[in-house]
């Protein structure tokens, strides 16, 4: 019986952590004045319409990337690429800087006043400020 409870607890912890892993949050540097941002504000940054932030991307293979763009910007990966191709080849702006993992993105945002990133919720710590939960 005890074992069954333990197993159930363990299973729920695993499940919870799996759910948490799928959860994506948008983070900025703690020095940034905004307490929260709307999905539209964040979408503007990631679609090149707002140059006041320095956005960060995760690799195309990262599940968080697809989830972020679909839910926040309403666009899939190919559409986002076409939009950036338009912006980049006009010299208007540079595409988001790409980091290999959520942990690296958090580290960059912690050290850069203008940075913004979408990361796995589990990677967020006190060095950055969460401004939007993607769901």
């Amino acid at each position, binding site marked *: 019986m005890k074992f069954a409870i333990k197993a159930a607890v363990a299973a729920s912890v695993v499940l919870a952590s799996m759910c948490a892993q799928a959860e994506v949050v948008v983070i900025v540097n703690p020095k940034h004045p905004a307490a929260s941002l709307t999905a*539209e504000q964040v979408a*503007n940054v990631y679609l090149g*319409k*707002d*140059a*006041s932030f320095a956005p960060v991307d995760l690799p*195309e293979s990262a599940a968080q990337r697809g989830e972020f763009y679909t839910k926040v910007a*309403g*666009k*899939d990966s*190919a*559409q986002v*690429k*076409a*939009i950036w*191709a*338009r912006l*980049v*080849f*006009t*010299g*208007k702006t*540079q595409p988001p800087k790409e980091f290999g993992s959520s942990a690296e993105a958090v580290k960059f945002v912690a050290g850069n006043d203008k940075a913004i990133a979408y990361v796995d919720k589990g990677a967020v710590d006190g060095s950055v400020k969460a401004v939007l939960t993607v769901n």
Partner: protein
Amino acid sequence: MTHKFTILSAAVALALGASAAHAADFDDMVSVRGFGTFGVMHSTEDRADVLGSVFMPDGAGYTREWDMRSDSKLAGQVNVRFTDKLDFTVQAISQYQHDKSFTPQIEWANLKYSFTPELSARVGRIALPTFMISDSRMVGYANTFVRPPDEVYQVSSITSNDGVDVSYGFSTGGVKNTVQAFYGVSKADLAEGNVEADSIYGVNYLAEAGDASFRVGYIRMELDLNIPSTQPLFEGLKGLGAMLNSFGLTNSGGQALALANKYDVQDMELSFLSVGASYDPGNWFVMSEAIDFGGDDMLSDVRAGYVMGGARFGKVTPYAVVSKVKAFIDYEDGISTTGLPTPFAMGADALSAGLNQSLNQFRGSQQTAALGVRWDAFTNIAVKGQYNYVDIGDNSNGMLGNVQPGFEQGGNYSLYSLSVDFIF
């Protein structure tokens, strides 16, 4: 040409120098990217060519049954970020040229200074922002269609401008506004001769709110068309006019001189008014532009527009485009032959016919209905197929070039296009 390559080599040398000095900072400071298209076209009109632009000497139809030159291009771009405020952009593009080569040209080479995130200025060679997607008209990957509708985009094929521009962005209640003002000069070679704009100036306003955008732009320019083949026409009109006057045939003589003056292709004062809008919520999109071109001399007034729409099903995006251009070409009765001796009358008729032919050659009317599909086949690679049904205006060559004997004005033809667009 030499100085163009000097700019590029300087940029490359700078980039390499920066690389040697600060290898770690290099990625942050310099980015090198490129884009390209491999395209093939087939036209069912074999007595004239569908041209990729007026700067191309030939194209699909008469010259080549299967044309792989008009749409194909390869471009490289280097961005150097000196500081947060100062950027340098150079873009070189290799595409089919007036001289039948693919010699790379410097499309852009400019320094951008951002005074604030809202206010920036550029100096150097910049894109001439005539249309809504002027900036990306060559970047096939950035666009849904194989190429922007010729009816609108070929009304002005000048793509770059040597000068300055200033952009200011501001937000008003959820709407992002951008105002851009620019001034410059431009020169481009044609298959024969060249086109030279001495002063180009204009202003654009862009409003973006969520998935919707709206744009209005106005440009004025002073243009010289230096085309050797038009010289005999003007010399002929002037010569005949002077001769008729000297014989006392001042009615016809005056007409010939007046026509030479009226249709001179120097110092033409041209204007473009353009309005465009797009709405793209993600799964589907619509986009439309309309232009009102104010012509002068040999270039008549033109009105043109298109509407396009499509839907996205994962990686597959079917779309449809309807576009139309209407040229308001003067028909000249020409020189009156009443009372002229036969040799003079024959000369006068030939010049009158030549004049009307030139008027038709410079501007055309046509409409197109197109269906296509874009397939985002692989990362950074899109494959597109497009079918155009083109209906040429009455008494017009449409937008066709290299018109051959046997061509029938006012007809129709089909254009099949396939392209592979990529970025790297």
